[in-house]
């Protein structure tokens, strides 16, 4: 099949490549751009491990073709750290609150949480849980992920973080 040329901005840098129309965006990101932080956990669009941020939307990149993303502005987990290379509030929150174990869902979870906090800078626990319902985790049971996101929200907003007791 003849290949198409695509161009997009990924983590602030312009990138391009040749893809078949059927090339899934997740494969373009992982195998051509060599950004392997985004993962594949299913083929039915449920797990969210492939979540990226595209033109200000959380999107499961396994359910989009690279050609559909032509001309867009994409952020993956590799683009989440602060400009000076230090960990973002979310990345710090996940570490402080033990919001990850095997790490496989973590990139998609953090990229989704990043957009969630843009949508709603001060979410309640219920809003957080609803806001990450498109990201499955098998290790943590989500409780510490919720705390991680609360930690990050507090840090970003400059408020105090009160860790919920067990």
């Amino acid at each position, binding site marked *: 099949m003849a290949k198409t040329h695509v161009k997009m901005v990924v983590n602030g840098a312009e990138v391009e490549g040749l893809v*078949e129309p*059927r*090339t899934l965006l997740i*494969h373009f990101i*992982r*195998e051509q751009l*060599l*950004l*392997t*932080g*985004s*993962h*594949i*956990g*299913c*083929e*039915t669009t*449920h*797990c969210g*491990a492939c979540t990226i941020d595209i033109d200000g939307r959380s999107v499961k990149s396994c359910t989009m073709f690279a050609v559909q993303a032509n001309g867009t502005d994409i952020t*993956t*987990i*590799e683009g*989440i*750290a602060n400009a000076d290379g230090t*960990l973002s509030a*979310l*990345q710090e929150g*996940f*570490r*402080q609150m*033990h919001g*990850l*174990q*095997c*790490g*496989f*869902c*973590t*990139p998609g979870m*953090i990229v989704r949480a990043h957009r969630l906090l843009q949508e709603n800078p001060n979410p309640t626990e219920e809003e*957080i*849980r*609803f806001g*990450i*319902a*498109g*990201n*499955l*985790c*098998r*290790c*943590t*049971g*989500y*409780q*510490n*992920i*919720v705390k991680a996101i609360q930690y990050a929200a507090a840090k970003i907003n400059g408020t105090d973080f009160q860790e919920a007791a*067990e």
Partner: protein
Amino acid sequence: MNDMTPTREQREARLEGMGCKRKRVEDIRFTQGKGNYVDDVKLPGMLHGDFVRSPHAHARIKSINVEKALKVPGVLAVLTAETLKTVNLAWMPTLAGDVQMVLADGKVLFQNQEVAFVVATDRYAADDGIGAVEVEYEALPPLIDPFTAMDANAPVLREDLAGKTEGAHGPRKHHNHIFEWTVGDRELTDLAFDKAEVTIKEMISYHRTHPSPLETCQCVCSFDKIKGELTIWGTFQAPHVIRTVVALISKIPEHKIHVIAPDIGGGFGNKVGAYPGYICAAVATIVTGKPVKWVEDRMENLTTTSFARDYHMTTEIAATREGKVTGLRVHVLADHGAFDACADPSKWPAGFMNIVTGSYDFPVAHLAVDGVYTNKAPGGVAYRCSFRVTEAAYCIERGMDILAQKLGMDPAELRLKNFIKAEQFPYHSALGWEYDSGDYHTAMKKGMETIDYAGLRREQAEKREAFKRGETREIMGVGVSFFTEIVGAGPSKNCDILGIAMFDSCEIRLHPTGSGIARVGTKSQGQGHETTWAQIIATEIGIPADDIMVEEGNTDTAPYGLGTYGSRSTPVAGAAIALAARKIRAKAQMIAAYMLEVHEGDLEWDVDGFRVKGLPEKFKSMKDICWAAYNSVPPGMEPGLEAVSYYDPPNMTYPFGAYFCVMDIDVDTGVYKIRRFYALDDCGTRINPMIIEGQVHGGLTEAFAIAMGQEIRYDATGNVLGGSFMDFFIPTAVETPHWETDHTVTPSPHHPIGAKGVGESPNVGGVPAFSNAVNDAFSFLGSTHIQMPHDFWRNWEAAKRLGVTG
């Protein structure tokens, strides 16, 4: 001493040793998307392999035509059983003493079984190639119901076992029979039942489910023709075992096989055994001379790799009228699917099911397990089961609730009455285990007080009256689960994997500038070993955990270990780590004595160095001793500071816990709400409380899913249902309840640091808590036992059967 001298507390804190909530080392790379998982491995010229799979559950293969497939652009080769036969790999040995087809040889035995392996330039071409392979099948009658597996006219599944009346575990009763395993005193147990005042008997089924880690099983195999060396990156919870297995079946010598388990995205027992994908990728790399990657997709994972459970347990308990148990008799029908591929230690075809006496002092007991073949995927031991302990715990905890109901006793009261008492430890169970330590009464009472158990039962009584009066359509259940686990496989006298004893190992080497590296035979898939193993070492040898690098998973450098599953890492490798560290400390003491010009016996250990007794200013830090180890050791001593320990545990360890689940169910819709879940765990010494809590959260979430709807089912013709995330219940953050965790500490007396392991406890203890809550909710309406899983619709069916639906 001046104000700048750090206090003892400060020095201890700086080490971040055992007992503290050390933040994880792994998180630095994982939160930045810089983990290195198998599918991240990319080698020059790498090819991609993928399977053609059978749509039939049971069928003869009439022909396989690969002509069209070979013409698909990008497809380079198609392996079939015929190809594999040329290297004697069409079949492979399983860990349970059976054999398993790598590629279908003449027939297929379960839906989605591997039939051919397409090798192509990339995964897209491989997928195209799969569609072009033409297979002709002749359907055969499928055997799906394990209860009919041993009928006289049951279909013959394993033609390869024709005439074999002896299996790996003894005589076979029938062509679909695998083994019978019995333990306990049959005569005395039957006697106890004959004269019992009260007995219960119930068929308690633990349905088939699947561990479903978020990363599926995968590997990259790369054969270097020049050197004759095979390198395999793979999702391996036991990389050394994989290396030995590959050496045994491939005839490539073991020293020329390099197995690397990099970061693994969850294991839960799914990634212990060898799968056809690994073998086919290995053969393909040898045949093509290029690296070959195999990555299974989710549906392949759920429907063909190691399933979990599928135990049908006829459970009988005998007791006095006052509620003292006098006997336990259990028969299990075990559905193993088409091949017995259970990842059990070799002498244990039913794992450690004989922990089924649980936390209770049964004077006599008998257990019999019959394993049978069916046309389903192979496996059985996985999913935080500790080798069938999940099944055993569910059996006894459901059984005790059923007994309580018959006696008209409160379930917690019945348990307290029958617990093994603290003074009875070490306790010899009627089915052959020596429980190391426990204090069940303290744990149970702490739990009951914390949740106000008495108050909950009063509330339940009021709600039941209100229900009968028609004032509410909600019923309330309190699920009690007091489990005793058995982990830490295991002592060489009775535990081996394919003949290799189940010790584990640690090698520590300290560098001149005072930091070091530890290599261990285990392999974390999220348990945080890089963080916790360093904590053990930090406490034992006084070097900050941050200065100890921990490495696992590379079989060239890690000492031989049996891997991570069955919660064995802390009990076995944790001991090896402590003992290796103590060897180093012993040598360090001699060096310090030499440096301080005193006798070794004049020194005492003080947090991070040695101090002369009575002369506090004469102190040598471990940092200084490390330097000295490389230039001024006592005469006759070798330089350097390293040690290795291979630890053969003297016994298993026995973590335990008290879990309570409060649940409300709407009888009109079957919808449940988990109001509260409290989990108290006793895993002995706690290395990192933060990580323990995380393990408990995760295991409870798995237990919740299993009990409340997660299953792999088959219809009558052998089609697998629930084989994708559409129907296979993985809860999101919205459904997952809030978990309250608590603990007591009863160290293991035989373990160097008193630690028992905890990873699987929440799944073991969690499922009974949920299932008992549902059953407890309905019990006042006249039900004795409602089978899992407790989906909404099944709860409604139960309500309907009891005549309470609107």
